[in-house]
């Protein structure tokens, strides 16, 4: 009985060690992958903002912005197709690397995202509880939200008072649109542009924070 218990304990310990090693492996691989991705996105965003914020000629001055705009998401899939053409993806799939990386990216992504946010807090780019660049009247922050419920969740994803300002503007626009069909079309338009809105809000916010620091 004692020997059996010892084997059981060893088994449990080995199992825990194996799971821990696996999780750490996923986190490390994923964290590196996502960190590189975040760094690239951040550098591109920063260069894009720095090079283009003066005269809003994205795609003309910034070669990176131009390439991103020309390629877009279709370019990403073209690259995937290019790799697939040479059997690279099949090779990776055979090794099961894609599955490992996918799991690692999900697990590591959370870690990196939290770490990245903490980093931004530490260096002062993101300031909790401080008034942001957008000045919004008090009645818009405290007043009733007129935007439809399907759009209200966006408020929490935008920096500072930008969410309140956006919702107030959406509510104002929809309140003055009497035609129901047009109203539905406008709501769909707002919903469709949410990713672009979030991206623009945060890049403008970070750019403004950086400029305030430099001043």
């Amino acid at each position, binding site marked *: 009985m004692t020997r059996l218990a010892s084997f059981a304990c060893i088994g449990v310990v080995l199992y825990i060690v194996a799971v821990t090693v696996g999780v750490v492996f996923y986190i490390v691989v994923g964290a590196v992958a996502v960190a590189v991705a975040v760094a690239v996105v951040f550098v591109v965003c920063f260069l894009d903002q720095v090079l283009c914020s003066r*005269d809003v000629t994205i795609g003309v001055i910034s070669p990176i912005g131009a390439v991103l705009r020309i390629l877009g998401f279709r370019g990403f899939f073209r690259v995937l197709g290019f790799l697939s053409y040479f059997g690279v993806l099949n090779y990776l799939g055979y090794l099961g690397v894609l599955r490992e990386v996918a799991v690692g990216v999900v697990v590591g992504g959370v870690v990196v995202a939290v770490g990245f946010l903490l980093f931004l807090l530490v260096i002062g780019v993101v300031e909790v509880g401080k008034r942001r660049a957008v000045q919004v009247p008090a009645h818009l922050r405290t007043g009733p939200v007129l935007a439809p419920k399907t759009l209200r969740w966006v408020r929490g994803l935008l920096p500072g008072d930008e969410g309140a300002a956006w919702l107030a503007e959406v509510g104002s626009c929809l309140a003055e649109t009497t035609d129901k069909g047009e109203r539905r079309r406008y709501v769909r338009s707002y919903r469709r542009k949410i990713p672009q809105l979030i991206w623009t809000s945060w890049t403008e916010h970070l750019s403004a924070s950086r400029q305030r620091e430099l001043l």
Partner: protein
Amino acid sequence: MTVAVQAVLGALLQQPDTELYGLEIVKASGLEPGTIYPILQRLRGAGWVSDRWEDPEPAHTEGRPPRRYYQLTMEGRTRAIHTLQSGRDRSGLSRLLAPPPAAPTPEAGPA
């Protein structure tokens, strides 16, 4: 500069001394409202456009929420005109800025 940004600038340049609110810009530019907000954000961040919220009192009197008005700054106006008229603009600035075509005048003389 994208066609959408040009359209927003064209709408604001049509009445450069007048403040326009979102719905007016939507109708003047022909764009969807979801499209113009991020553009106005970028223009505001670049200093091309200034904005202000309407006082709530007159809006409540009219029974509607306060509007957010936008207007080109002097710098923005100059740079927008310059940029739109420069050689980089190949997508119809003249069409955006041109005055509406005059109505055809009936020809004089016997038919």
